[in-house]
């Protein structure tokens, strides 16, 4: 049996199989898989007996429910007003420079995806970013490089060379 199907079945067992359980299940799959593939959405539709189109329509409404393949770590840099005033562009440059990807892209090794997002609710500590569910605030280019280095050293993240 496909592991994603198992995951989906378990999530459905845990949350229930009604329409109002859809979001937690989508979130559960994204938590594990980082994104919702066509296969995942089909399986969810089947498991919950929902039209597949509705699953797709719902998932694409939410910016955290990615439907394109994402890296192991999704970096979301806040681009809203305060962060933007406080140097978000430099942060983006530092990340792009270090990971050699542009916004919207994933590193070839599949470790990092770089996205921008709207206000994270840390404006008093701008600029801010999320890496998966972890928040990092009062960023500077140096700080960002340190943070990314620590991720690069983490287990499971393999360096290209």
């Amino acid at each position, binding site marked *: 049996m496909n592991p994603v199907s198992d995951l989906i079945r378990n999530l459905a067992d845990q949350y229930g199989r*009604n*329409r*109002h*359980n*859809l*979001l*937690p299940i*989508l*979130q559960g799959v*994204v938590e594990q898989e980082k994104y919702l593939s066509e296969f995942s959405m089909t399986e969810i539709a089947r498991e919950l007996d929902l039209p597949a189109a509705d699953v797709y*329509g*719902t998932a694409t*409404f*939410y*910016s*955290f*429910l990615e439907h394109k393949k994402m890296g192991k770590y999704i970096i979301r840099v806040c*681009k*809203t*007003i*305060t962060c*933007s*005033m406080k140097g978000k562009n430099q942060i983006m440059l530092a990340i792009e420079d270090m990971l050699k990807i542009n916004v919207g892209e994933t590193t070839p090794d599949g470790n990092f995806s770089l996205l921008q*997002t*709207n*206000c*994270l*609710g*840390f*404006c*008093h*500590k*701008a600029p801010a970013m*999320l890496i998966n*569910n*972890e*928040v990092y605030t009062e960023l500077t280019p140096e700080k960002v490089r340190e943070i990314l280095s620590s991720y690069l050293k983490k287990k499971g993240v393999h360096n290209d060379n």
Partner: protein
Amino acid sequence: MTTNYQLKRADFIFKNENDWEEVLSKNINRSPQELINELISSELKGRGGAGFPTGLKWKLSAEAVDETKYVICNADEGEPGTFKDREILSRVPFKVLTAMAVCGHVIGAKEGYIYLRGEYFFLQPELNKAIGEFEYYCKEINLDFKIRIFMGSGAYICGEETALFESMEGKRGEPRNKPPYPSSCGYMGKPTVINNVETLAHTFTIFKYGAKRFYDLGVQYSRGSKLFSVSGDTPKPGIYELELGMSLADFVDEFGDGDTKAVQVGGASGFLVPRKRFSETAIGFQGKLTGISLPTGGSMMLFNSSRSMFNVLDNYLEFFREESCGQCTPCRVGCQQLLKGIKAVKRGEKNAQYLDKLLRLAETMQYTAKCGLGQSVANSFSSIVENFREEMIY
């Protein structure tokens, strides 16, 4: 901390809460009617932005006849420049949980939900722990009330109450037509009270100290204190609890960096106030005060003279263009037109009079959009374009 200004600090929200069990057990033994009266006489208005009288909201749901009702705590906190609700939930969660349970007692609901924005996922474990402890106590005092967290997934519009219901029902967060209102037809079509995190925290204060303590703070139409999320060009960004009714001039004296050019009150969907209007602007709910009075979800963003107001507006409009649910014409297309429009004027592709057409368009959006998002784009748009017209053109 003390202050010589008219700015009156208050300290209720984050004051220690060791006595929540007492507050809970005491208040669930009071009659719903008594509790509603207490709330009404406090004149507490919703802190989520719209400023609806909380006592009346609970009363309407209490009067709705239905077996099943819900209490929902709106912790979607997506308004740019707002970050107080997270702080409340992480520092004094029991106040909010207690308030929800009391609300459940008042309206006759046995289930409560906290709709927590996806960005605050990291808060979930702690909050769940608090809920566990809370429910344990409820069981001890034989109170049948359950609280669950429902996670959002990155959509500002889901803070709008009916979009939030749709989202909880597993759908796209598209706001519904109103009427019907949540008090009769909310989550799952059932009578629902939905309150902002901070509103609920204030009800705790009111239930603990009585309505008068709260009512005595603030000014007419704007009673009580409120948390302000201060950010931007300020030496002391952070969260502050202040009495309502202060003048913006006093606020800037306290929080400005000496060069404050304008303050955005109420986030991207609020108003921009230029320096020349600081002293005539009072922070509170609509009502006849000196000069203008502004409702606010508590976001105060300061801009100094190094900031381009064009960039600020550009950033807001981009936010709305993305975060609009997209269902209604004025908001979906209007946001795109406003954004493209100011850029075209800036680049000289459209002449300055085009700004007037855009101002009229913003007004149409305010009149015709389906929900508060589209309706309030005009707030920042018009206040920025009218006050900083030159910056839009040159």
